[in-house]
């Protein structure tokens, strides 16, 4: 079947590719397909614009600028923060959206579009945690109890993928790739389940394993992803409890019904390490593959590799 559409854009500091299989039989179908892809892409842009900590004008940055008082926020930002706080709570703080300032301090501070460096003035001796963020579900307000910088990176991209899924699910067979965070709907253009390689954490040219995926998100967190420009031995996944890079694992891949869930739980499991990481994934009913720096593998019971 040679009927598909592929569309790539840059968004959220990465390349987003959306593929829809089929639905191109006539002009009207092709128009509907293009419009759905367009709506999916708009979600990426809107969620990025609202949730980035790299733009002082974003709604997230505006929230960060106000400490100690309730700030009414959009449903989008409210929901993203609420979900991030729930993951923080479930992971005992291993995952923590308030690490933004410490990420800045380690050099993860440049706007990928403008190249401008963000610096938030916060007394360095005060380490915030997710417990310093209060949400009011009735008024949809968020209160920061002390100066902090929220980093919604592990939630926003997954949420955007999930929104794109909503726009595309009527087509049944489609793929969304946001820099290696994936959702694969239905089947590929050969009528088979999507084949997904998992990047090898120590050999960029190799795949660690291959998965057959249909109607599921697949997200990976790895220590190879982003190195600190200030200390190349540091990577971007920080254990919020210690303030250091998490070192127990080299990569975590999670399959879940939602990319937001998969991405956040992959990050949380990465920080927790193999034993607690597997326990967390199992508790929440998602599947995962955890690989240590010495390449030992740990899997949830339902994980199936090719």
């Amino acid at each position, binding site marked *: 079947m*040679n009927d598909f559409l592929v569309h790539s854009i840059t968004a959220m500091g990465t390349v987003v590719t959306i593929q829809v299989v089929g639905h191109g039989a006539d002009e009207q179908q092709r128009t509907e397909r293009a419009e759905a892809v367009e709506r999916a892409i708009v979600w990426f842009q809107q969620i990025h614009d609202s949730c980035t900590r790299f733009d002082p004008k974003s709604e997230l940055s505006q929230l960060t600028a106000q400490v100690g008082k309730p700030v009414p926020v959009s449903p989008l930002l409210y929901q993203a923060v609420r979900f991030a706080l729930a993951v923080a709570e479930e992971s005992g703080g291993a995952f923590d959206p308030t690490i933004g300032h410490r990420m800045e301090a380690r050099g993860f501070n440049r706007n990928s579009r403008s190249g401008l460096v963000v610096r938030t003035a916060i007394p360095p001796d005060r380490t915030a945690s997710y417990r310093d963020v209060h949400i009011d579900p009735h008024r949809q307000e968020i209160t920061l109890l002390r100066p902090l910088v929220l980093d919604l990176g592990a939630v926003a991209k997954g949420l955007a993928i999930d929104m794109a899924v909503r726009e595309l699910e009527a087509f049944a067979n489609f793929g969304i790739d946001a820099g290696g965070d994936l959702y694969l709907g239905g089947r590929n253009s050969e009528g088979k389940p999507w084949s997904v390689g998992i990047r090898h954490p120590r050999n960029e040219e190799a795949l660690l394993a291959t998965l057959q995926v249909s109607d599921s998100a697949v997200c990976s967190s790895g220590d190879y992803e982003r190195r600190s420009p200030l200390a190349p031995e540091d990577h971007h996944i920080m254990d919020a409890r210690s303030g250091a890079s998490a070192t127990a694992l080299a990569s975590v891949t999670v399959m879940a019904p939602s990319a937001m869930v998969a991405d956040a739980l992959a990050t949380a499991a990465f920080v927790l390490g193999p034993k607690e990481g597997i326990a967390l994934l199992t508790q929440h009913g998602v599947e995962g593959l955890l690989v240590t720096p010495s390449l030992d593998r740990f899997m949830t019971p339902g994980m199936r590799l090719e």
Partner: protein
Amino acid sequence: MKPVKHNLVALGSATVLAVYAAGYLRTRSAADRFLADDSERRRAVATTEHAPSPLPAAPMPNDPVAVADSGMSAPPVVAPAEVAPKAKKAARPKAPDSAAAAVAAAEPPAGGNGQAADSAAQAPEKEHGPFKDGSFSGWGTSRHGDIEATVEIRDGRIVSASISQCYTRYSCSWIAALPPQVVARQSANVDYVSGATQSTNAFYYAIVEALAKAK
């Protein structure tokens, strides 16, 4: 481990529904505006469509066009017209001193000379791959800085890919392994790769932009 207070999968579903319901209209109108503004240009430039066709030359997902390291062996990727990396370059801050060494250490691993040779492009033929022959360059960007990549197209297929300029803030050596993959992955046997890297994205996008010129 303590008992589960929130089931994150259930909470995730609720979150997705709430955000979708709240933003649906705004998204739709933004998308409609966008489509109305420049549907013609986007159809022509930013989107690759394949109608059902008996022609054997029509690209298949696992076919030639695949660029990618960063998890995209999906094929006809085309740079977005609305993103203008050229404009960005003027605003790019001076690379810090430490990066100067990195740039020096990151001479193009292959022979790309960094100059696009769009004039060398030829009209594609049916039995060719999907690209115009010639040498094409594009810029990619990431949090760490910008990269220029050059692809060589022969018989409509990618025969080489190289990093022609590298302005990332630290060594480009660890992406030097990528250009061969652009060529190799033409025959990638997976649809996607999970777990892409930030820096490879800059390279990937540079390739995306270069290939857009080869359309």
